[in-house]
Structure formats: structure tokens, C-alpha cells
């Protein structure tokens, strides 16, 4: 650990917040239907979409019809993407001549990209054609992100409303967020990325004869255009197997900084936009504080862990230094640590180093950040609504302590909301621990493990945490392209997205119908240090109580094994 390392982590997070603030104010304009400076170009396109879809933009939907639209759209996306992947050999732009995906892989991949998870059971550069990358995967990087942000907009409208039945229109939200936010920002980012070194070509590959006379086939794709939305939309699905550790996806320290900043910026911007829409800026600031405190703590733990003496390097008597297995020289421990914390906290899932080769506590912390529910700051949109669920539970706990009906942002929180909130939250342990415990004793699942002992259990636990949290990163030694893993991980991703989001929409419907109350002297303050502490406590207790026993058998026991190994040599 050294001063530049700590400065890098602190500055990266500070820049992220600085970018998120103006972005959030703009996002609020977009989801509230206000005018923007892009109207001249985009209004006609917007109207065209509404006409094509048969949508009357001002009508508004109840929470139920909003939810149905969200589900129907996701289903249509799934079918189109499944067909593209399954039959990519019959489609154009396949310079590599790849075959269509197997049914279980196409299922897993289509679910993965529609749920904003971007788990990848395959090696992209030897599996996915250029057309599938673009028309299949790049487009769903946009759409799954836009759908997530749409749900966050619904939560904002619910808290702002006073006895309302409608919560906006899903098709309007999807269209405006895609056109006014994701597309223009991605366009600028993608061009900047090419300037900084990323390839952007339809060529497929180039054959090189190396300096020493060997052959090297260099796989090439339109990388920059996907990288931009991959990070901006907290998707995380790499064009290459090594994801953002691959020099083509992340050539230098500047691209690395930009990629980290944009993978958290839009999730934080959702909180800012929420504060503006609900007229609760101080409360939004408290939520941002909770997110930043937790992600900074996570990055610090991972940085400290990765700076420890690795058993293998200790045994080989190398000069003292960080655990470089699975890390790139240009990033080292600090850039990799702050990336790991932001990608797992944010439900992005892109990596710039291999989590499987992290020190036990480094990898364990990455896993724990996912298990906290992908809310710090979480996926775009999903992070905000996940955090609001936690906030409802926090005010409920506070209400129990003083014996008063809890309120949050002028809305009474009653039995129905808390039941729905718990329904959402309990999906996580159900899917993560349920699937992990089955996989841990099934030979067909265990065949995929790359590492023995406690680390093997960590690979299983990480996989189901990542899938259920819609994260997408992995302890990548796991060979997941088998019917068992593809199918169960696909189910976990579906549960984590839809079984979580539908109760959230129901909460929104219920809150919107309630009267908006003015704060009184008896209202529990939700904008100060007391609430920040309470919310952090609730998040850690929920995550800790549910997952600590499993973590104790994986990363924690491996930590003690590593400690034993170091003095032994």
C-alpha cells in the first residue's frame, strides 16, 4: 500500500460523485418529460417510436400495467436475442464463421443480457459473431439499462405523488432514457475511447507474424461502441473473455479511470434525480453518502488484501509486492481494487483483474458487496429502488423502536409495503444460498470447479451471488458452459431481476395512492448522520446475517489457510 494508491482510490470516487451530480439533474429533466437541448434532433424520433408502438404518451399507466409492459418488453427482448444467438451462423457479419450457440448457452446468454446481468458462460472471442455482438448484445446493453432506470423513475413518481393512480408510461420512459441519456453519452464516450486506443472495426481478426517469427491471430471487434454502454449501463459483459483486463477493452490508466467513473455515475445520478423529483435533496444526499461510504470501505479492504504477501510469492522469495496473479501491470493493486469494489457494488460485473485469483479477503469482499443487494450504488435504476427498499426497512426498524407508524418522504410505511419489501429482499438468500447448497453436493455441478477446497465453494457461492444480484462478474475459473450451470444461473438471474422488481413496482403503486404528508416534529429525520448510520446498519445486518455463515466456509476459512501458509515457507 502506498500514498499514490490511496490517492487514486479517493480521487476516483470523488470524480465519480462530481460527474454524477450534473448528470442526475439532467436525468431528472429527461424522466420528468421536461425539455432538453437535444429536443430538436430527438423529438421527431421519439414521436416516431410512440406512433409505431401505438402509445399515447400522456395517458399514464397503473403500477400493474407498467409492470406488464416491463415484462412483455423483456420477454420480446429475450426472444429476439435468443434467436440471434442461436442462429448467428445464418446471419450476416460473421467473419469468424462461428456456429450458432447451443440452446442452453443461448438461453443463459439471452437471459443474462436482458436482465442487465451480462454473466458470460462462454469465451466471447471464439463464440460470438460480430453481428451478435452488435445487434444482439450491444443493443440489450442499452435496453436493459433503460428498463432499470425506468423503474427508478417510477419510484420517484410514487414518492412525489399525492393520491395518484398512474406512474408514468413504460414505453415513454424506455424511449426517452435510451434516446436522451444512454445514446448521446455512449456516442461521445465511444469516440473518446477509440482515441485513447480501443479498436472499433468490423474486420474480425488480423494475422500477425511476431518479431520472433511466431504467428498471432489478433481478434478484433467494434470494441469501443460496446465498452461505452457496457460501463455506462452497469452491464459489464466483455467483448473479450478477459473483459476490461484485456488491453483492447481498457488500454491504459485514463480509460480505466473513465470506465470506473461511468460505471457508478449513472447509478448515483438516479439518486440525485430522485431527490430532485421528490423535492428531497437532503434525503438524496444521505443516500449518496451511504453508497459512497460503503463502496469506499469495500475498495479499502480489497486494496489492503491485495497488498498482502501472497502465499505463492512468499514461497518463491520474490521481491515484496502486491498479489499480481490475475492483475495487469498498468493497473496494479489500487486500480484493480477500486474497480473491483465499484463493479461489485454497482452490479456492473466487468472486471479489470481476475477475482478468482484475488487474496481470500479481497475476493470475499467483492462477493459480499454483491450480496448486500447491489445497492451501493447498484445497477442503473435498480440500485436506487433496491436502496429505497432498504430505506423503508430502516424507517420501519426505527418506527418499531419508538412505537410510531414509520414515514419516509411524507409517505406512511405500513404493513403492505414492508411485506412487499421483505418479499423482494428475501429473493437474494433464497436463490443464492438455495442454489449454492444444491450445487455444492451435485457432482454435475462440481465438475466445473477450477480450484480445490474452500476456494471451490467460493467459486459456487460467487457464481450464484453474481447471477442473482444481476452482477455478472465471476470467479472465472468455474466452467459454466454446461446445461446445469447455464440453466440454474439463468433461473437465478430471472429471479434476481423480476422477482425483485415486481414487488418494488407494487410498493410504488401503493405509495403513490397514499396522501403526501407534511413532516411534523414527530417525524423521524431521514437526512442526517443518524439515518445514514441506521441505513448502513440495516444493510450490513441484513447482508451479514444472511450470508456470513456461507462466507465463513469460503473466503474466511481460506484466509486463515493463507495465513498458515505464509510463515510455513
Amino acid at each position, binding site marked *: 500500500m502506498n500514498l499514490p494508491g490511496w490517492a*487514486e482510490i479517493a480521487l476516483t470516487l470523488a470524480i465519480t460523485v462530481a460527474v454524477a451530480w450534473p448528470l442526475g439533474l439532467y436525468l431528472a429533466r429527461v424522466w420528468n418529460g421536461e425539455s432538453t437541448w437535444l429536443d430538436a434532433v430527438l423529438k421527431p424520433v421519439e414521436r416516431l417510436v410512440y406512433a*409505431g408502438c401505438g402509445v399515447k404518451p400522456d395517458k399514464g399507466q397503473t403500477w400493474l400495467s407498467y409492470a406488464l409492459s416491463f415484462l*412483455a418488453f423483456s420477454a*420480446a*427482448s429475450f426472444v429476439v436475442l435468443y434467436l440471434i444467438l442461436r442462429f448467428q451462423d445464418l446471419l450476416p457479419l460473421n467473419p469468424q464463421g462461428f456456429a450458432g450457440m447451443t440452446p442452453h448457452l443461448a438461453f443463459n446468454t439471452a437471459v443474462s443480457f436482458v436482465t442487465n446481468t451480462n454473466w458470460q458462460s462462454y469465451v466471447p472471442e471464439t463464440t460470438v459473431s460480430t453481428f451478435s455482438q*452488435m445487434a444482439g448484445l*450491444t443493443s440489450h446493453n*442499452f435496453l436493459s439499462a433503460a428498463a432499470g432506470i425506468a423503474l427508478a423513475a417510477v419510484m420517484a413518481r410514487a414518492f412525489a405523488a399525492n393520491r395518484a393512480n398512474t406512474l408514468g408510461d413504460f414505453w415513454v420512459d424506455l424511449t426517452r432514457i435510451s434516446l436522451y441519456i444512454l445514446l448521446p453519452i*455512449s456516442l461521445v464516450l465511444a*469516440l473518446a475511447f*477509440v482515441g*485513447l486506443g480501443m*479498436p*472499433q*472495426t*468490423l*474486420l474480425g*481478426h488480423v494475422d*500477425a507474424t*511476431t*518479431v*520472433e517469427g511466431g504467428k*498471432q491471430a*489478433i*481478434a478484433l471487434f*467494434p470494441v469501443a*461502441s460496446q465498452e461505452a*454502454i457496457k460501463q455506462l449501463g452497469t452491464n459489464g459483459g466483455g467483448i*473479450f*473473455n*478477459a473483459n476490461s*483486463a*484485456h*488491453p483492447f477493452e481498457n488500454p491504459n*490508466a*485514463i480509460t480505466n*479511470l473513465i470506465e470506473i467513473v461511468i460505471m457508478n455515475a449513472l447509478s448515483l445520478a438516479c439518486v440525485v434525480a430522485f431527490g430532485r423529483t421528490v423535492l428531497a435533496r437532503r434525503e438524496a444526499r444521505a443516500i449518496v453518502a451511504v453508497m459512497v461510504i460503503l463502496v469506499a470501505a469495500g475498495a479499502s479492504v480489497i486494496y489492503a488484501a491485495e497488498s498482502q504477501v501472497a502465499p*505463492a*510469492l512468499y514461497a*518463491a*522469495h*520474490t*521481491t515484496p509486492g502486491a*498479489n499480481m*496473479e*490475475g*492483475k*495487469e*501491470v*498498468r493497473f*496494479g493493486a489500487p486500480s484493480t481494487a477500486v474497480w473491483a469494489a465499484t463493479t461489485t457494488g454497482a452490479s456492473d460485473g466487468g472486471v*479489470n*483483474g*481476475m477475482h*478468482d485469483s484475488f487474496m481470500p479477503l479481497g475476493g470475499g469482499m467483492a462477493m459480499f458487496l454483491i450480496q448486500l443487494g447491489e445497492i451501493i450504488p447498484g445497477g442503473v435504476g435498480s440500485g436506487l429502488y433496491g436502496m429505497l427498499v432498504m430505506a423503508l426497512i430502516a424507517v420501519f426498524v426505527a418506527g418499531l423502536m419508538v412505537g410510531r407508524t414509520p414515514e419516509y418522504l411524507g409517505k406512511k410505511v405500513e404493513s403492505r409495503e414492508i411485506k412487499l419489501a421483505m418479499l423482494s429482499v428475501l429473493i437474494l438468500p433464497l436463490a443464492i444460498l438455495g442454489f449454492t447448497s444444491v450445487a455444492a453436493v451435485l457432482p454435475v455441478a462440481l465438475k466445473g470447479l477450477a*480450484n480445490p477446497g474452500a*476456494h471451490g465453494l467460493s467459486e459456487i457461492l460467487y457464481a450464484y451471488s453474481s447471477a442473482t444480484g444481476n452482477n455478472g462478474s465471476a*470467479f472465472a475459473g468455474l466452467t459454466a458452459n454446461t446445461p446445469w450451470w447455464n440453466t440454474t444461473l439463468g433461473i437465478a438471474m430471472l429471479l434476481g431481476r423480476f422477482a425483485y422488481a415486481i414487488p418494488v413496482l407494487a410498493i410504488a403503486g401503493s405509495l403513490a395512492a397514499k396522501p403526501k404528508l407534511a413532516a411534523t416534529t414527530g417525524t423521524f429525520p431521514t437526512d442526517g448522520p443518524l439515518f445514514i448510520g441506521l441505513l448502513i446498519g440495516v444493510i450490513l445486518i441484513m447482508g451479514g446475517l444472511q450470508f456470513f455463515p456461507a462466507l465463513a466456509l469460503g473466503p474466511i476459512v481460506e484466509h486463515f*489457510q*493463507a495465513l498458515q501458509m505464509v510463515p510455513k515457507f
Partner: protein
Amino acid sequence: MLQVIRASLVSTLFFTALLGVAYPLAVTGIAGIAFPAQAGGSLVHGKDGQVIGSSLLAQGFAKPEYFHPRPSAAGANGYDASGSSGSNLGPTNPALIERIGGAAKDLRAENGGAAVPGDAVTTSGSGLDPDISPENARMQAARIAKARGMAPAAVEQIIAANAEGRWLGVFGQPRLNVLRANLALDAAGAVAHP
């Protein structure tokens, strides 16, 4: 219900065309004009114009007169630029401890017992890490000087000229691009290969 089905299909197809086809093609078109070298993969060309690699990707170097990149877990023989991968071995995996121990022993034999930095015995995340740490380069300097019949100071000079520091003094880590440094060695003239 019919309206919802219609909206689902129309929006999916429209946005696939806009975001999945028009957007990447637009970026490809503009980037090809504005940044042709980067867009094409930062390829490096030899004397006759043939492609000898990408400055962003590691390639195998085994001869003693060249800087050697970090070990690679990409593909069966390493440095497979169509199959990036880390080793994904866990920190307490006996296979990792054995592999790193063996690599350190080999390097000490090869480089006259010079101290071995961690990046020289570990595989990178991509298996295509184009860089080595400056310490790793200095470990190899004496071997390279001997193989080329160059003065050690001349090799040190090439290391100093090609080493890059942290961006703004904070972001990233100090490093040396192996391919560029090796081309600089060849350009320095004192090539000893038969």
C-alpha cells in the same frame, strides 16, 4: 394486451436497429476517419509493411536478447490474442504455488540470480499484458546486454527511455511496453542474432 405485444415487438426491433446497428456503425465510420490507427487495433508494422503485432498486446519473446513479457495463461501456449484469459488459480491453490516457484527458479537461472519481482512470475488477467514493471525490465538487463554484446548502460538507457510513470502521478502503475522496448533494442543496432 394487443397494444402491449405490438409495443414490445416494435420497440425491440426499432431499438435493435438504432442501438445495435446504426450506433456501432456510426462509431466505426467516424472512428475510422478520426483515429484509424487505434480503430484498427494499434497494429505495429515491420520493415516491409507486414503486421508484426499490436502495441497493446503481449506477444511471446523467448530469445535471450529480448525483454520477455510476463507469463501468459491465454491459450494453450500463451499470448493467444484470440483467447484472452487469466489462470484463475486461487491464492492457496497448490498448483499456483508450484507454478510460481518453478518460474522464479527458472528466472534466477536465466538472469544470473537477479532479484525476481512478482509480476515476472505471475500471469496477468488477460494473458496479453503488454507491459512489465521497470524492476522486471532491470532484472533482465544484464542478460540482454550480454546476448547482444551491448554495454549494460545502453540497455538501462532503453529501459529509462521507454518506461512510463503513473498518469498525473496518481493513476495506474509504472510500466514498460515490452514490444516497443524490444523494437528500440533492435533499432539500437547492436543485434547479435545469427
